[in-house]
């Protein structure tokens, strides 16, 4: 396996009480990436200290502001402080594969697209439950019809954004609606994008940290009000 470290991309990882897993995740990420930005979103445990000890840049929110806000903070820190061309968004719970992320940066370089989105339905979703699969499929259909994007996965936390695209990401929606918000930004700004198959490993930890399926309805409400207000 080629393991040349990626130096032109920063991996942004929002964390919220991830002390039990973050050291392993960061060790894995550092295997392929030089620059890692961890955003501690008001954690009560010491994951910020662990991340700093592991060699990551750490930005600490004074209060819990939500994962979307943490992502934007990490992206802005990476763009302002690090000499990188790409920003990778990565979940702290270890559900993403680091090699997938490195492959996606490589795809962004060779294809020249502004955004590369991970898709578990092009790749593999390990340990996924039937109901979760059904909700995600419905979310894909919803995203396709509302944004016009030809995507096969709607709520995947693994993405690569080129600097010019990352610079325009402003996330306002609370809760977990930011994943859909990023897709609407891609659609409305007309960013060029590609999908890349990724493997998601569902563990008990990631399922417990993850969102409930019924939260999909909250996301739809957020998106509708946001879109109507933007159009008005």
């Amino acid at each position, binding site marked *: 396996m080629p393991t040349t470290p990626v130096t032109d991309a920063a991996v942004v990882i929002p964390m919220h009480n991830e002390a039990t897993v973050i050291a392993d995740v960061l060790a894995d990420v550092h295997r392929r990436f030089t620059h890692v930005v961890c955003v501690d979103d008001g954690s009560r445990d010491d994951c910020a200290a662990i991340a700093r000890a592991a060699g990551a840049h*750490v930005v*600490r929110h004074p209060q819990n502001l939500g994962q979307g*806000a943490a992502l934007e*903070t990490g992206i802005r820190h990476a763009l302002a402080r690090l000499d990188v061309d790409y920003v990778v968004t990565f979940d702290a719970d270890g559900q993403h594969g680091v090699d997938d992320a490195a492959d996606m940066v490589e795809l962004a370089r060779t294809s020249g697209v502004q955004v590369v989105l991970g898709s578990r339905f092009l790749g593999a979703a390990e340990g996924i439950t039937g109901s979760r699969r059904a909700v995600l499929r419905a979310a894909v259909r919803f995203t396709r019809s509302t944004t016009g994007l030809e995507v096969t996965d709607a709520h995947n936390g693994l993405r690569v954004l080129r600097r010019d695209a990352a610079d325009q990401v402003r996330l306002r929606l609370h809760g977990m609606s930011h994943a859909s918000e990023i897709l609407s930004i891609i659609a409305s700004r007309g960013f060029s994008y590609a999908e890349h198959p990724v493997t998601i490993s569902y563990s008990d930890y990631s399922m417990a940290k993850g969102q409930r399926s019924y939260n999909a309805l909250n996301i739809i409400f957020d998106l509708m*009000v946001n879109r109507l*207000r933007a159009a*008005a």
Partner: protein
Amino acid sequence: MIIKILLIAALAAAAVVLVRGRRTALNLLVRRAMMLAAIAAGVVAVLVPDTVTDVAQLVGVGRGTDLVLYLLVVTFLFTTIGLYLRLSEMHDRYVELARRLALHEADEDAHRQDRAELT
């Protein structure tokens, strides 16, 4: 029947405010005028309770109490939407403020610059 038109119009207006409510000087003026009108109407209703029933029957509602209830529901809806929009706006500002603080704290160069300016 007049009351039906009035209530539907008020509910539609509430939906419009939810979608495109902006804080403008005109909105503020309307809100203040309504507040003063509500106080004046309250004083009249207390001093001459029969006027409420008269107004109710004028718009097609049987009892004055029912009219007051309808108005209360509509007012509550407008208040809730207004507060929801206000809170969302405050939340956006609060997130940006906290983010600037977090980014500044994480910025070693800024700390060095601060110390240099102090000495």
